[in-house]
């Protein structure tokens, strides 16, 4: 399944994570893995609250980095897709 801008994602419940200095760390204890995210992926991750559409996340990042949301579309969808494939987040 490939994601579109109107999709809403939710972080999988029970996945410990934290953000320090704009960088997120996710502990995937079941798979004995830890993932450190880059700055943009960390912003996306922290907004996967089960309420915010990917389009709104793109707008937030665009505002922060002073670029057009359209330019970010591919990257944000790809990162979000990765979260789903790694079973760190689910599409609701």
């Amino acid at each position: 399944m490939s994601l579109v801008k109107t999709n809403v994602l939710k972080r999988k419940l029970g996945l410990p994570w934290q953000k320090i200095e704009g960088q997120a760390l996710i502990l995937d204890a079941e798979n004995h893995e830890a993932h450190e995210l880059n700055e943009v992926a960390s912003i996306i991750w922290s907004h996967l609250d089960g309420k915010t559409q990917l389009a709104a996340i793109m707008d937030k990042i665009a505002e922060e980095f002073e670029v057009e949301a359209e330019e970010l579309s591919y990257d944000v969808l790809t990162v979000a897709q990765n979260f789903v494939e790694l079973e760190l987040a689910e599409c609701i």
Partner: protein
Amino acid sequence: MNNQSLLDQWRNKSIDQFIPLQASLELTNRCNERCGHCYIPSFKDDPAKVLKIESWYQILNELRSAGTLYIILMGGEAMLNPHFWDIAKKSNELGFHTTMISNGLKINKIEVAEKLKSVGIKMVTISLYSLDPKIHDTMTSVKGSFQKTMNAISYLRKAGVKVTINSLLTTLNVKTIFDLEDWCYKNDLELKIDPTVTSKLNGDMAPTRLRASKEQLKWFYEQRKNRWEMFKLEPAEELNTDYVCNAAKGKCAVTAYGDLLPCIEIRDPLGNLVENKFSDIWYKPEAKKWRDIKFSDLSKKSASGFCEHCPGMAKNELGDHLQELDFSVMLSQVKKEVSETQETNV
């Protein structure tokens, strides 16, 4: 980068920036055992001071904003807090890695272990002192506690909750400690053996009477290094400019009354989290006293490379957080001696 080096990197980052990556929460002082070695001065909660569930939620939220990732629920016996389940659930929902240290007595059926799993408890560290029921029960002062603790381990593992074991080395269990180690190894259970019995947190020295003697400690380390390659003792680098411990930097603790502590051993509250915001008290100048202790501040009686100094323990016992305890000095010397015989043997 492998997981361990990534986690170490985060740990170092938290120490450098005073981010309490790990927070221990004493959910209650109450307990269903009466261990002779226990550091808790009184197993009662003052009803006027004990926190309401809303306060625990508020504290969890503040720790979340402060950068905490690991929450350790403990006590007393954490499960005796009437809000235990709600606190554990909330901790998981907020994204903390939530674990518990427990004697296991309340985990008395598989359903309890399953519930712990379902509220998101990632690991339970069980305190087990010996495989000899008499010795364990003597240490906890509760007849039958050994069997109940063993049952808890088995329920937890059946429910898919990771279990690790904590044991304290005392005069009472030293002789059987390697039976416990063998059993843990056979059962794939990580075991931590702590050789240091602290005083009670109010300075009462009663628990320290159970400390293993110098000869017993020496025997323990000698045997251990002969049994396991990984337990060969190596001196650590202790530069004068290095911090002695992680208190008030990468870790903190919260008491059953909401007092914020630099670490579980240091009972000088930085402030109360019901009355103050975390950020207002964590960075206040008084915290520096605990945050900035370096090796150069110590009298250096300990064997170099094997320092066992704990500022909280020294404060509780001697009233001076920089003075090294005789026991810590002795332990460091024992470790050094054993490490040297290792080298001669090679």
